[in-house]
């Protein structure tokens, strides 16, 4: 069986997880692959965790990435990056995540404690050595909107992994899915992430 790529996009409602998954799916299709995705959207916009599985290759069976099979976890939020990596990431896989937390309401109410970023990072390092943490929200704001954090991470992923999708297909997918103005911001964000990625592996 030829390789199936398994990517998990994780975050919380309102961060555009499902949109990022769709960009990846469209880019994979344009690169000649068959694609399947599945979303778990408990409650978008209401602080719930959102998770998308994206699988592409010459032949994909189920849309659900089995536990421990993910090649890459893209976390738009640190805790969600950890949650999905623990369940899905394979031992030598790669996790790329945004260091800007979105605190659950219970943390605000002091009923739960949000783990330290350093602890999240070291927990991830026990699964794989390929752990990349960046301030994607800030980079996205610089590109025009903090909502483009996911696109920053996609660009970073393109630079640091061997994901077999050419850059221009990501751009084209964004142009197809967004209005001109929003597409421009996201492509810019993708490029910022891409350069950061190149820096990180230099």
């Amino acid at each position, binding site marked *: 069986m030829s390789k199936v790529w398994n990517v998990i996009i994780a975050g919380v409602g309102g961060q555009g997880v499902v949109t990022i998954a769709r960009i990846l799916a469209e880019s994979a*299709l344009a690169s000649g692959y068959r694609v399947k995705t599945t979303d778990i959207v408990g409650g978008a916009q209401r602080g719930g965790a959102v998770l998308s599985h994206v699988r592409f290759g010459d032949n994909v069976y189920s849309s*659900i990435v089995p536990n421990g099979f993910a090649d890459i976890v893209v976390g738009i939020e640190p805790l969600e990056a950890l949650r999905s990596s623990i369940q899905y990431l394979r031992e030598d896989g790669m996790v790329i995540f945004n260091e800007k937390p979105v605190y659950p309401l219970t943390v605000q109410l002091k009923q739960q404690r949000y783990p330290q970023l350093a602890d*999240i990072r070291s927990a991830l390092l026990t699964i794989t050595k390929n752990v990349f943490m960046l301030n994607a929200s800030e980079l996205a704001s610089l590109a025009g909107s903090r909502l483009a954090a996911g696109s920053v991470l996609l660009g970073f992923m393109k630079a640091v992994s061997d994901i077999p999708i050419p850059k221009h297909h990501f751009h084209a997918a964004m142009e197809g899915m967004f209005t001109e103005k929003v597409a421009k911001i996201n492509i810019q964000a993708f490029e910022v992430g891409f350069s950061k990625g190149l820096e990180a592996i230099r």
Partner: protein
Amino acid sequence: MLKNSLLSNEKGKRVILSGNEAIVRGAIEAGVKFATSYPGNPCTEILDTLISVSNELGIYTEWSINEMVGLEAASAASIAGLRSLVAMKHVGLNWALDPLMCINLSGIEAGMLVVVGDDPQSRASQNEEDIRFLASMSELPMMEPSGPAEAKDMVVWSIEVSERIKLPVLLRATQRISHGLEDVVLGEIVQPNAKVEFKRDERYLVTGAGGRSVRLHENLHKKQELIESIIEQSPFNKIVKHGEEKWGIISAGMGYHIAVEALEYCNMREKFATFKLATPHPLPKKLLRNFCNDLEAVIVVEDVEPYLQTNIRAILAEEGISCRAYGRADSNPRAVGEVTFDEVLSMIKRASGNEQLFIKSERPHVTKFKHMLISRPLTMCSGCPHRATFYAMKRAVNKTLKDKALFCGDIGCYSFASQPPFQLIDLKFSMGASIGLACGFAKSNIDNKVFAIIGDSTFFHAGIPALINAVYNDSRFIVVLLDNLVVGMTGQQPSPSLGLNANRTESVSILPEGIARAVGVKFVKTFNPLNLKEAERAFEEAIGYQGPGPAVLVARSPCAVYVTREAKIKGERLHKYAILEDKCTGCGVCTQHFGCPALVTKDDNKVWIEAEDCTGCGVCAQICPYRAIVKEVS
């Protein structure tokens, strides 16, 4: 991009579609002209998407008041000669079951598809159930796709079959199918030449003297032979068998792909014959018989209940076939939820006696870091008017009733008030149950003041008969009706109080307080929850009301997500609020007792307002004891 794909005439083109979008494309290809729905996960996006192209295609689309009415309207359109579709979530079919159990007797005319979104694992529903049982109860064919691409083709095929057998066809799409993307090959768009007319026929007079409905039931039974032969030949049931296999796997929906992948994973593909079963009702008996005949055992892979397994066992017993059928019925207590890769692996292990199979999730860090994974409960959004209502309600209750209050909740965004900081919901059942429960508690002479807490859409869907019950039987309690003008929970579809239809054309705005007065409620009061003083006073008055009948409070303020989106469309700026650093003492009243997500506690305990989240409702400014929150001057 999506709109182009839905409208495209390029037959053979490969595009990315979600299951819901693929169902829409299928309906377009089949020439559906009439579509209804009531929103509900996982299939809300079917009508949402269809609305976006309804003008171009001349398709009538409607958000119906509930699933029962939606089903009735769609069957009328079909009886009149228009191909129709109705979409609902699994519990919606519980509501629509009553008319369905007559429409299966009368039959219809033009092709009609009932799409039922099922939610194994109950990710966004009040419960988990298995809707396949309602197909066998209503004796209607049910199809189950294993992915978006197949869903699209199945819609076209099912609508044609429906027209041939003159019965609605059910399509079960689980959340994994509806909310998944796949590359889909576009087909041709047909335009059946529909003549709209009503052809009078005795079969439409289902209820009648002389046992007509029983005769119609007999006719339905007679039709089963035709249905079974169509199902046996459906292009969607797929068998892979070489003849040497000892074992087999039978599965439907996403479970089929999980099963095949699990076989590949443990190099057992050649050892197991596979059967993708796309027709949960009626089951293709002949195919099943031939498949199982020379096998030692089959594994039946399915979500939720062992519906297929028990039916297959019965078929095998009837035919005297010795093949065993393993599945969920074998465990005690029976498994629940979605089937997983690991569950399939252990079933393969069991059937093949191969104890070497390694199950990946048995990994050390799964348990090692679990403690760090704090939960993320759903909450009301920033600026949500419901939060203001509950803040005022809690103050009024604490002042007058203390813990002598009982809160019957309902389904909608306001149900999140069961959590801190409010904890003002004690029961949550199904749509409209709040008022019915309140009627019962109040009449049981319970020593608590009883509240029914319900949203506008839920009230229109299921609450009105219960309110009439309360007036008619003089049940004394307080109805808190949170009217945010939309169906917030499912993505801000318009509700009758908004005064806009599905495709945003003007309609009559129907107000719940008008209905309350019309049915004889004596205490009716409307207030704006964003004005906390006004809101608290309204609650105090309602608590003081002694009867007769219930008191109805209507808290009206539009959904914050809706407000933000409308402002964006119109290019308007919302006036935000900000903290005066020097005045904030870090007392925590706004964050601990109100809990709007836009209010963030900093390391020094002072509060910060996340400007991008603030919708400018201004409620936190009314709460702050130090007047440290002010409207930003722009």
